[in-house]
């Protein structure tokens, strides 16, 4: 391990943690020095989030020790970890804030729940919230209910809170999973500033581009243990190989403009009042990626295609016929599937609910087709799920495991598996690879491409790297309109280059 020149801020040794029969951590060691950004890498289910939760006091380790600034510590609660100077952004955005409270209240949640001033008013909270939001140039309506925020905005709120905590150790568990390039880059600039101020930062991400941009050092977690450390300059191919146990093949798609039959077509569509109109054809067998900054309207376009929203103007056709849906039920019956952007809100059931298992989660939208008589045959569900577990490498005990026992990336894989369980006409994926490791992403993309029989796939992603990897065609969205929506237009690189204000990052090998 590279000897950090500065003093060691955080060090953990021999951390073990099991969940029933599952061994999440099997003696993990890690150090982070002050003024250093350490990238923690690992495949889905490697134990990264578990380690983070132990360091930040929400889990109690089965074994192992921890020192902070040289002193031995152990935390019985997140409160203690916070008090000791550890700030954390957790992976799950459903735990980023409390519904029913306003954005301002959520921005100041740590102070409210910790040791902030006793007397508060709407005004004092808003003032403080604005200061916190200012740290990351966040501009959100302060009085809106947190519940009404989009996932990316929630994630930003959580980041702002952690940054504002003025901690000595900052832990970020996939903070950019739903952020676009521009937001991510602003975050990196901030992290670099904090590093310069001597903060120790532990950064977890499956976006290699992110890590390349900021990490001083990478450590790889596998099977609950650290299996590799890579000092700067980081050898990412080697790190990925250590992480997933095989080298990653560079994927390349695109090329010939498709002439296959059109499945869905948008004509003169205006998403919201005042936006520029655009056209879009989606052809059989093609994978189209839509990228763009936060709030540019990607999700809205997908919701329009799914039939959940109606466009302000223009027409949508599906297989040549005018397309409008009276709800997801009809859309699904018509073969239009959508993976919504927030897996917690859109797909996950509480563990005690029947059907919260992997099998049940995959089966839910397909119940009417699979069991027209109404009576559920559990073996059929389990069969599909077991196949998905094998195919996508989902790390789980079996098909009956509930999703709360899975790591974030594995949850996402289950959600994707749900929509691959049946053939469709139009598959709409909104930020589908959030938290999915690079190896699994490859498998998923292969699966999507493999099942490309007679269907079109649209992927909305804020990560250009991802878009490049998966798509035949990349479109850029800005201000609720498509730029270069012509499919026939030259190369992919040109499409990106000519579009957004944010410059695309290069794919690290």
């Amino acid at each position: 391990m590279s000897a950090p020149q500065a003093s060691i801020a955080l060090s953990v040794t021999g951390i073990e943690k099991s969940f029933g029969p599952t061994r999440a951590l099997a003696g993990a060691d890690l150090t982070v020095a002050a003024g250093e950004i350490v990238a923690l890498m690992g495949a889905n289910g490697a134990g990264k989030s578990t380690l983070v939760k132990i360091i930040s006091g929400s889990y109690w380790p089965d074994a192992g020790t921890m020192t902070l600034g040289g002193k031995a510590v152990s935390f019985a609660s997140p409160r203690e970890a916070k008090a000791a100077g550890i700030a954390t952004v957790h992976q799950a955005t459903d735990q980023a804030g409390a519904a029913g409270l306003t954005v301002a209240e959520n921005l100041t949640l740590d102070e409210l729940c910790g040791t902030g001033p006793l007397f508060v008013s709407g005004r004092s909270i808003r003032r403080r919230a604005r200061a916190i939001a200012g740290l990351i140039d966040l501009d959100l309506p302060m009085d809106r209910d947190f519940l009404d925020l989009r996932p990316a905005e929630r994630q930003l709120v959580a980041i702002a809170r952690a940054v504002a905590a003025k901690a000595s150790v900052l832990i970020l568990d996939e903070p950019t999973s739903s952020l676009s390039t521009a937001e991510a880059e602003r975050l990196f600039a901030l992290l670099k500033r904090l590093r310069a101020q001597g903060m120790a930062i532990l950064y977890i991400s499956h976006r290699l581009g992110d890590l390349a941009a900021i990490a001083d050092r990478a450590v790889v977690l596998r099977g609950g243990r650290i299996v590799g450390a890579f000092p700067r300059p980081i050898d990412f191919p080697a790190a990925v190989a250590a992480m997933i146990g095989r080298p990653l093949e560079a994927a390349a798609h695109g090329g010939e403009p498709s002439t296959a039959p059109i499945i869905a077509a948008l004509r003169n569509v205006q998403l919201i009042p005042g936006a520029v109109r655009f056209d879009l054809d989606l052809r059989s067998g093609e994978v189209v990626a839509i990228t763009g900054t936060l709030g540019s309207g990607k999700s809205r376009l997908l919701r329009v295609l799914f039939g959940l929203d109606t466009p302000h103007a223009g027409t949508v056709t599906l297989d040549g016929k005018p397309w409008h849906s009276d709800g997801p039920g009809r859309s699904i019956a018509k073969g239009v599937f959508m993976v919504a952007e927030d897996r917690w809100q859109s797909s996950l059931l509480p563990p005690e609910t029947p059907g919260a298992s992997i099998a049940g989660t995959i089966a839910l939208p397909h119940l009417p087709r699979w069991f027209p008589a109404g009576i559920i045959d559990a073996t059929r569900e389990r069969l599909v799920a077991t196949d998905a577990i094998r195919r996508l490498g989902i790390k789980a005990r079996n098909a009956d495991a509930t999703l709360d026992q899975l790591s974030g990336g594995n949850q996402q894989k289950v959600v994707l598996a749900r929509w691959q369980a049946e053939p469709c006409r139009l598959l709409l994926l909104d930020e589908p690879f959030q938290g999915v490791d690079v190896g699994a992403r490859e498998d998923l993309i292969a699966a999507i491409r493999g099942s490309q029989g007679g269907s079109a796939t649209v992927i909305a992603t804020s990560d250009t790297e991802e878009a490049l990897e998966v798509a035949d065609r990349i479109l850029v969205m800005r201000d609720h309109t498509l730029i270069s929506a012509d499919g026939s237009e030259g190369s992919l690189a040109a499409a990106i280059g000519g579009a957004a204000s944010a410059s695309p990052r290069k794919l690290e090998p």
Partner: protein
Amino acid sequence: MTTDTSQKSAPRASNIAETARRYALFVLLGLMLLGFWWAQPAFINSANLFSILQAVSVVAILGVGVSITMSAGGFDLSVGSVAASAVMAASYAMVVLQLDAVSTFILVLAIGALIGLANGLLIVKVGVPDLLATLSTMFLLAGLQLIPTGGRSITAGMVLPDGSTAKGAYDPAFLLLGRSRLFDIVPLPVVIMAVVAVIAWFLMERTRFGRVFYAIGGNETAAHLAGAPTKAYRLAAYIISGTLASLGGLIIASRVGRGDVSAGNSLLLDAVAASLIGFAVLDKRRPHVLGTVLGAIFVGVLLNGLTMLNAPYYTQDFVKGAVLVGALALTFGLGKRKR
């Protein structure tokens, strides 16, 4: 990508705790039966056991309705007053409107379904929170059911508010519903309870409809995005609950033989209690039909036994509460899930 299958070394102790948790209420029920049998041999004769089942049948039926609304993420506070209104409606139909047993039966079930529909619309269409909507309905019905008779109980030959005398009477066929026995041994209400329980259990645990009810209760947005017509389901849950409550009311009416103002006072709390106790049965930690019925039987056995042992009424409440706390501590306290 390795899928590490479960390591086989699951510690035995936690398995025992889990089994204990699953069957805690069954064991407790068994112990109670044995205890009462020992203290009072008459307790265990089949007539008495059927008496217990008969006594709990109405609460169990209402509880099933409550647990279905609960599983769909709602809560029906109006079941008690729907049942009470059903008693009044059935009596009014026969005594004042002079309908026969069958028409009365259908009419009252329809009224129950209609009230459920009203609840559902208030919740789904207008957007009133479940508790609030059904609470309003509860108050509304508590008053409404008394208006046709000016607050009086309904009996054959009663004087109506307009001064005339009611001409009808309870149809003897109607009384069979609550008072006759199958094969001269199983009271009809027990049969009805069993039928309702089996159908509801099958619906909720074995069909995709049940799945969707639970999915809606677990995460309505997710269920909606997965294609479920969530509003229709929630509406259905309240209609089922209203209909079951009126069925319970019909049984009461046929047992009581008159439209009694005070009938059904404690039904709401007992039905809610039954479905809440059901949470602990089989360690499901959620509303479910089997648990609800068992919860109702559990309380019924307790009360019957204590009455036989001549315990004063207030110790019955006390023991009911104490046994509940004990059973819950056992189920939920034994090796609860770790953080």
